[in-house]
């Protein structure tokens, strides 16, 4: 069972410079956030999904469809009841907040999907190289990547701990809120201690392998901008500009929405 997200596929997206992939991710975030109406948000979501399909990383997204649906529904409900509008629909619901809720749900899901695609197409080490090339110190880039790397390890040990405690009769399904919270202690203590031990040994292994022994280290993976990278980045800037202009002109806004 693998908890890693990276999928070793040989698509043009995989071959892009990690910086380009970082820009695409950030660009997707910006474009997704500045639209208010569900229509442009849906267009953006479709483009992001197409990007996922092109990079053959949709498998990872199918794995979290449950989560995405839950977030989507919750956001729609929350915003529909929180914001106010002018056109009544039924009961306490009004058209503008519902539209806003739908677009916010789509936006949040789009951002998660964009993040998943990024992690499915970029190795941890490439992220590090990209960040270093962007001028960040290596220690920071490494720490960031280790955090990404640690997540699957912690999930793995959490599963193990949960199985061990379930075998000793721990039942998380019953009891009130307080007693349920108390029931998580037998899970959290071993997970915490295992992680602590893991990071401790990791730091010893790093030190033994000459981590930070030299002022400047080398990288086996190269990050170089190719013609494709220039094209992709130009296109990205163009789309960003269009999105910003649309926003300034007030296109894609929901009229009559009040907070």
């Amino acid at each position, binding site marked *: *069972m*693998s908890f*890693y997200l*990276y999928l*070793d596929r040989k698509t043009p997206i995989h071959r892009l410079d990690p910086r380009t992939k970082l820009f695409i991710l950030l660009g997707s975030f910006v474009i997704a956030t500045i639209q208010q109406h569900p229509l442009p948000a849906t267009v953006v979501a479709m483009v992001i999904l197409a990007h996922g399909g092109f990079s053959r990383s949709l498998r990872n997204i199918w794995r979290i469809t449950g989560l995405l649906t839950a977030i989507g529904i919750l956001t729609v409900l929350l915003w529909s009841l929180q914001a106010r509008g002018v056109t009544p629909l039924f009961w306490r619901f009004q058209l503008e907040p519902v539209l806003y809720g739908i677009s916010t749900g789509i936006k949040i899901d789009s951002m998660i999907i964009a993040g998943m695609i990024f992690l499915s197409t970029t*190795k*941890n*080490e490439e992220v590090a190289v990209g960040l270093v090339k962007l001028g960040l110190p290596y220690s920071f880039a490494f720490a960031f990547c*280790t955090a990404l*790397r640690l997540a*699957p390890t912690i999930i793995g*040990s959490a599963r*193990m*701990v949960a*199985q*061990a*405690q*379930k*075998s*000793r*009769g*721990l*039942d998380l399904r019953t009891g009130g809120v307080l007693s349920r919270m108390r029931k998580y*202690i*037998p899970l*959290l*203590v*071993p997970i915490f*201690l*295992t992680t602590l*031990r*893991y990071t401790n*040994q*990791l*730091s*010893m*292994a790093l*030190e*033994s*392998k*000459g*981590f*930070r*022994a*030299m*002022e*400047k*280290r*080398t*990288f*086996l*993976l*190269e990050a170089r901008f190719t013609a494709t990278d220039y094209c992709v980045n130009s296109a990205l800037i163009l789309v960003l500009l269009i999105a910003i202009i649309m926003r300034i002109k007030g296109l894609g806004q929901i009229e009559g929405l009040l907070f």
Partner: protein
Amino acid sequence: MPRALQVKNLSFQYRDSERKALNSVSFQAKRGEFVAVMGPSGAGKSTLLLTLNGLIPHLIEGELEGEVVVDGWNTKEHQTRDFATRVGMVFQDFETQLFSTNVQLEVAFGPENLAIPPSEILQRVQESLRSVGLEGFEGREPATLSGGEKQRLAIASVLAMKPNLLCLDEPTSELDPAGRDDILAIARWVRESAFITLIMVEHSSEEVLGADRIILLKGGKIVAMGPSSTMLRDVNLLRKTGIRPIPITELFAAKGSKHPPLTLEEGLERFRKEGWAIDELKYRSLTELQGLRQRRYGRVLIDVRGLEHTYEGGIKALRGIDLQIREGEFVAIVGQNGSGKTTLVKHFNGLLHPTKGEVRIEGVEVRETDMLQLARRIGFVFQNPDHQIFAERVIDEISFGPRNFGFPEEAIAERAQRALEAVNLLGSRDADPFSLTKAERQRLAVGSVLASTTKVIVLDEPTTGMDYGESIRMMDLIRELNEKGHTIIMVTHTLWIVSQYAHRVIVMREGKIIRDGSTREILSDPDGLREASLKQPQMAAFGRELGDFVFLSPEECATCVVK
């Protein structure tokens, strides 16, 4: 010629400890020498390794006296990271030292830190992978490798920094026999290359036959040091330092031999030269005892039919298992890592559900039973006790199960008391579980399962990381539980434990059962074992060479030998 390694009067005390982990240790090693470090748990073996590249005292706090000099460099005067080109350190837990997304980048990590140009890094990656037999694995994700392959990758990743001293901390203890042989082949390669000094901490005598020298540590002190051929013959000394002697050596020592043999071939030659023989009558009485035991088994407790299991992601772990286990049996399930042993036993208490087929416990389908109900009948002791210990006191840890199952307070106290007694931890009743040794924590894990009175106890690798003495105590405890009526199912790859304790052996390979029979039957068949990448234990092989005998331990063989 300068000494590759000099350790002078070395003592170390961890910051929070009351006693010295190392106490006036002195030794030297020449370039190209293979030194094995052996001793019981807590002897200071791992601590000694950590001093060799300066992790002690630079990263681990405590009081260090004496000195360690590697190739003229004193560890006190240089940082650990600067020792990377001199000392290659491979830790016991290989999982924690692999952190890259593919094999090539894993090996490249060290050279990258040393700012070596990429073209040379590529060359070093290739060389290192070749020397551990992992060519062609460059693009693989480390998590998808087998235990043995991971360990070899960990070794390659330090070889790429071209160290003069290679330190391996129990490199074979968590591996199946096939993985073990691969690591020993690397040790031989290092030994023959003659430019790398190898320091290896190891529990098993059979694996250090190729060492030039053995250092025996106990309580932080060197108790003996000498050529491996002399040390390994000293059966009494080995036993006293918690090390299992080579079985054939043990047999001849038991028969009063002054210079016992070290290998099977040597042993056979000596046996014939001395004109010894096997008393067939005595041997037959041993096998009859076994038949008697089999007739006493009760009704079928676990009934598995056509069981298949496919994990999320499509990995087929079990491909059609049929199996019955009766009350009172002591079953060992063996096979390579990834053969489906653990997946199979996780079906017995409902941790996993069949993809196809069925599992019945006392006649009831597991799918129709609540996991809580099941857990009271089938206890499960996981491989690593640290994945479950959480309480502040031993007694609370032991009471956790019975409390979950809703027993009244007096019953909980009584059950906990009995379980503590059974696992020999009465003296530690109020101790902090984390202050116990690994072996004691494993016994605590058994006790905490036992307290819920389960009929069947499933143990996954119960002796991992234990020394010989601890393993014997653990297994004697399990045997006692079996004699008191508990059915025991044990997953393991330690064949000497299987041969000395189990009544029945199930051999698995690629999700199927390929052999199932009494321990003597299974161990008499080297081909069946080989199919599962297992090696016939020495005593069983010895008996087969002498005739139609299968001995399960040196003691058993010794009682049958007539001079």
